[in-house]
């Protein structure tokens, strides 16, 4: 076992599992994370990657997009909590709407609004241009806007 792999993974695992959960739901998040990390380690030490965290973020998104093509949208929606009263309903509606976004748009929203990355850093993490990243955010916000205003 390569200790540096374990160290790097342990450092980022909480961020990675949260990211995977947002993209694919809690039921599959562990599997997505494990699949991505193991696949990477089959070929490469995490320590050999220039930016292991960003690499794994990209790989998780890639994995999620791959899976999304093989399942219905409904599968990916979060499960309604047993007692919805405990949650502010508008927030839950927004959460549902977020989960209904295509993975790349949702990833962009997550990185900017949750991870507080700059547009440039979020674009770099997703391996895209800042223009495309802005487009993802623009489209996502547009889709969410009605819900938020009605909330």
């Amino acid at each position: 076992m390569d200790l540096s792999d374990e160290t790097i993974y342990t450092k980022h695992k909480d961020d990675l599992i949260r990211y995977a959960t947002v993209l694919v739901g809690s039921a599959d998040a562990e599997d997505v994370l494990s699949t991505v990390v193991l696949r990477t380690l089959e070929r490469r030490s995490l320590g050999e990657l220039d930016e292991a965290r960003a690499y794994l973020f990209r790989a998780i998104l890639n994995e999620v997009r791959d899976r999304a093509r093989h399942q219905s949208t409904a599968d990916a929606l979060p499960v309604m909590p047993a007692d919805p009263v405990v949650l502010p309903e508008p927030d839950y509606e927004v959460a549902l709407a977020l989960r209904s976004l295509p993975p790349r748009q949702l990833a962009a929203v997550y990185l900017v609004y949750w991870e507080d990355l700059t547009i440039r850093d979020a674009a770099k993490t997703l391996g895209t241009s800042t223009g495309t990243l802005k487009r993802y955010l623009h489209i996502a916000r547009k889709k969410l806007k009605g819900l938020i205003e009605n909330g």
Partner: protein
Amino acid sequence: MADNHDNEAIRRGLALLVEDAPLAPDFDDLTTTRVRPIETNRPKPLAVAGLSAAAVVLTFVGGAIWVGQSGGQADQAADTPLAPNETAATTPSTVANLEPGAFPHVVLDASGWSVAFVDQTKVSNADGVFVVSDVVFSNGEEEAELRMDSGAHVDLDALIADRVTDASRLADQAIWDATAVVVDTGGAANFTAMWESNAVEYEFVALDIDQETFRSLLSSLIQTSEEHWNSSLSEDIVTDRAQAVSAYLEDVPLPPNFDVLALEEGPSEHWYPVAAETISRVTCSWIELWIDAKATGDTEAVQRAVDAMATSHDWPVLDDMLAVGDYSQVVWEYADAMSGDGTIVAGSVTTVEASYQQALGCGS
């Protein structure tokens, strides 16, 4: 509604999703938490490597790029991005058959502006599968994006209706042989122009600029020659393929009778698919020699192929590609299998012979 309110609402929505997160498995437990075989998820890089000269697709972790011609559409494109893991059987030929040349070469003919990025996506709907893409122009500080779509599903009226629903329609603006509908889509000075010309739908978007600048940029869009297009490309896009291929083949042992010249023909592309196509040709040739040699009992030739592919771990181009996509990993996987028992161990067991063409994009 204030942007801050929107942002807070989004963060609260994200918080609900995040709070469902399970504990991340410990490093030692990774193998036991993975319940899905790797094989079904592993990269299938033929979408990169299997490109013909005409089908210019770049796939990488996190996105897909199509370079050379341009095209694009907004929401649908983002909804169904051309997947990095598209199957080898469909992606290259599908893209190649979608008449990429139907899109004209469009540049933003203004001082300091160049083509910074081209992002291709595949749109599927009841009418079929279409390729669209976004061209991002940049002057180093600002960016503007042009989406073109010539698919049969183009419905400019619907697109305009969608954009105008919550936006302010401004004065139309003439462009080429058409009239563009210009809208202010709100937020921090976001403008969109939509028009149709010669059965191609165009949507031009710029964010964070004033209307005067937007209109000026819109009027600077011109349909141009391939030469002008090439001169507008960023440095990430290869225009001298011979020079690029030569660089990619540094320290790469070539199979006997390898036709380098065949790699030097083709349109301008982002460097990644050019590199992937180059390495694909080399790797596929070595594997085919290895298979033939095994069949004929030529142990010397078998070893030559094994030794050549073993050096792939030191090919500089694969290290460069690793930062962008997963193709390098697949090459190494096959190199290792050749020096071992010929078994590919990523998930369900297969063999080099049974899987190399699809995995590496051979024969495309």
